């Protein structure tokens, strides 16, 4: 039995109202007066902070409820109701969504505060915060929605906002194209989502199309294995689009064209994790379709491998982090794919902290070097930017999976689950990727912060960022350091608090394997980290010149030419077909009957023209012939 609370609706409403307010203020003043940036900054941060406060309230309320009925729900109004299709605009706060909104609002608020400094001086300052608030509001709708359709509203909303924010520097065609790519690739995924929802509805949705009703009816006879598999796979297609897995990951690296806080919020901490959240949310479906889970896990881990390979050779600091995000998302899907839903979600949680930290730190570096993003033009910055350096090192250790940082515990949980459920292949690839992660992360750190500065001029002008930017970094670093202890496994003496918290929301069966397996998993992860770190240190620790890539390295540097492949196989043929339709097919094929009819009239007219000779005598002859024919016929009929 859930309790109905009205304030659930306020959580997404605050940022959405903020977005409308800021947006209108910007639209009506941007070409006339100029509003001081402070006002926009304050307006922008009010919404996220208030939402965070409300999220805490929800958390406290949930803690007070007994575990079996740990739900808070609120039906705001009937959205639409047609026949068997009853959809309410409703919100559901259960342990899973509560965890999500806590870190989404917390990290969102921090990033908004950071952006006040980072975006200073930009003439579209107000527009930026309007979009950011809109994004946060949509993400909260996504997470708090009580059914797949409400989630879809947030889902598309964050897609829209990522389009708007990626193409924020819209004067440059490349940035706008990157935004287009993101929206369109996302939409391909959304097609899968919509189809999955449709099949799900016709199977079991007549009793109510919200999570609680669907969960209750998940074992109805209408839900055969075929339908279940179809629904799970189609929904996963949606997730691959939003969370940048194979084959729809190509938008995320290009999305780095947006301002760095955008990358931190959207592409590290929140939006891309929507896909993982969705799979966890539908755990009651995936738990029954093991094949679907295996596909999810394999796609995830292969994506992790592919992205890690790319990350090892990138030269743009943001692109390294972008591929790192794709790779870590792959881990999360591997986790939820092997039915370790809480492990996947826990990695979402820790990843949010350390990836946001790394992106914001990278932003700090970029800001200090006046928008230089190429790591081969940096170097030796640790002396000039100590706070940034320290916090980024913490983030790097967390990402690479070094104990006792948070990333280690969450990643280890996933790998252990893979091993314990018998997915040896996934585990092995996962360990390999862990090593590669350590390598590329520290490659980046060493090249940027250690050794001699490669560009003296930029180095001279670099200085530490203002505190409005460094304070969020520090706060996030604390999270990256200690968040892991929230889910400490038994072998370390912990209680797995997060897993237990999440248990009512997920249809999960925790695997129980022997201590030996646990130690094997932990040991392999630590060794992989150590090897990766060592190689990175030996190659880059003392400062290294820019390498030139040949052979496989060059192939990986060019991301296996996948973007070019998509362009040649999908984009160009699409345009060619479109072009041929209106230039060739339309005039010659579909319009041919219509043109044919008008030509027919002309031809018939020409045929009849033969009889119009103009000579009266011939017309007289026609009259005679006609009359004789008529009289003949009449005389016949009188018989």
């Amino acid at each position, binding site marked *: 039995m859930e309790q109905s609370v009205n304030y659930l609706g306020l959580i997404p409403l605050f940022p959405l109202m903020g977005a409308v307010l800021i947006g209108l203020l910007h639209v009506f003043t941007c070409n006339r007066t100029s509003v001081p940036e402070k006002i926009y900054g304050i307006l922008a941060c009010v919404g996220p902070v208030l939402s965070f406060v409300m999220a805490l309230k929800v958390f406290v309320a949930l803690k007070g409820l007994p575990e079996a009925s740990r739900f808070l729900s609120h039906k705001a109004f009937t959205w639409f109701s047609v026949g068997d299709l009853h959809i309410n605009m409703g919100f559901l706060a259960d342990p899973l969504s509560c965890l999500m909104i806590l870190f989404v609002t917390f990290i969102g608020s921090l990033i908004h505060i950071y952006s006040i400094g980072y975006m200073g001086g930009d003439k579209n300052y107000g527009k930026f915060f309007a979009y950011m608030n809109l994004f946060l509001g949509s993400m909260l709708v996504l997470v708090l929605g009580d059914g797949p359709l409400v989630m879809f509203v947030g889902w598309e909303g964050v897609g829209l906002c990522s389009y708007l924010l990626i193409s924020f520097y819209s004067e440059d065609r490349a940035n706008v194209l990157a935004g287009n790519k993101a929206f369109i690739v996302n939409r391909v995924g959304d097609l899968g989502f919509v189809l999955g929802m449709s099949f799900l509805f016709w199977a079991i949705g007549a009793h109510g199309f919200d999570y609680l009703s669907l969960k209750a009816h998940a074992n109805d006879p209408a839900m055969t294995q075929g339908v279940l598999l179809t629904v799970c796979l189609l929904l996963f297609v949606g997730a691959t689009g939003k969370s940048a897995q194979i084959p729809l990951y190509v938008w995320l690296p290009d999305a780095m064209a947006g301002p760095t806080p955008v990358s931190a919020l959207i592409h590290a901490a929140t939006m891309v994790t929507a896909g993982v959240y969705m799979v966890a949310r539908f755990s009651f479906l995936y738990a029954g379709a093991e094949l679907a889970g295996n596909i999810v896990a394999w796609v995830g881990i292969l994506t992790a491998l592919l992205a890690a390979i790319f990350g090892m050779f990138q030269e743009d600091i943001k692109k390294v982090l972008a591929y790192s995000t794709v790779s870590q998302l792959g881990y999360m899907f591997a986790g939820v794919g092997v039915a370790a839903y809480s492990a996947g979600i826990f990695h979402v949680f820790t990843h949010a902290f350390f990836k946001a930290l790394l992106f914001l730190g990278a932003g700090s570096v970029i800001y200090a070097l006046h928008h230089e993003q190429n790591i081969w033009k940096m170097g030796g910055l640790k002396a000039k930017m100590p706070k940034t350096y320290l916090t980024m090192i913490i983030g790097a250790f967390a990402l690479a999976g070094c104990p006792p940082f948070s990333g280690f515990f969450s990643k280890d949980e996933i790998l252990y689950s893979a091993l314990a459920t018998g997915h040896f292949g996934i585990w092995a690839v996962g360990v390999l990727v862990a090593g590669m992660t350590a390598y590329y992360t520290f490659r980046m750190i060493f090249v940027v912060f250690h050794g001699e500065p490669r560009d003296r001029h930029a180095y001279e002008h670099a200085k530490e960022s203002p505190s409005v930017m460094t304070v969020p970094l520090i706060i996030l670093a604390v999270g990256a350091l200690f968040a892991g202890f929230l889910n400490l496994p038994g072998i370390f003496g912990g209680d797995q608090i997060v897993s237990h918290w999440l248990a009512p929301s997920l249809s999960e069966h925790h695997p129980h394997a022997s201590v030996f397996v646990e130690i094997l998993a932990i040991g392999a992860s630590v060794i992989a980290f150590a090897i990766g770190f060592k190689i990175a240190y030996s190659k880059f620790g003392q400062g290294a010149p820019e390498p030139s890539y040949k052979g496989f390295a060059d192939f990986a540097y060019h991301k296996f030419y996948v973007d070019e492949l998509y362009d040649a196989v999908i984009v160009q043929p699409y345009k060619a077909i479109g072009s041929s339709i209106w230039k060739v097919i339309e005039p010659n094929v579909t319009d041919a009957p219509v043109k044919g009819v008008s030509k027919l009239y002309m031809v018939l007219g020409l045929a*009849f*023209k033969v*009889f*119009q*000779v*103009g*000579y*009266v*005598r*011939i017309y*007289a*002859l026609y009259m*005679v012939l006609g009359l004789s024919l008529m009289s003949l016929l009449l005389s016949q009929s009188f018989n």
Partner: protein
Amino acid sequence: MIHSYLYLSIVLFCLGIVGVVSRRNVFTVFMSIELMLNAANLAFVAFSRVHETMDGHVLAMMVMAVAAAEAALALAVVILLHKHKSKLDTNVFSLLKG
């Protein structure tokens, strides 16, 4: 008995048609039309004789009156045509050609 009159009437009518259709001079065309009218008159009178009524005679009178009026109009049209083109050849007047 009446057959010979009818045969004569038919022959005259056909001659008239042939004349209308194939002659180029406008006057000849009108003469052929008059011939057709008179052939019809002959047939009317012959039938009137067969049925022993006056209807055919009356109709023949009417036809003659109509023929006269029509001849007057036709000649007026011929004069106008001649004014227009200075020729009386029906082939010349072919503006209706498609």
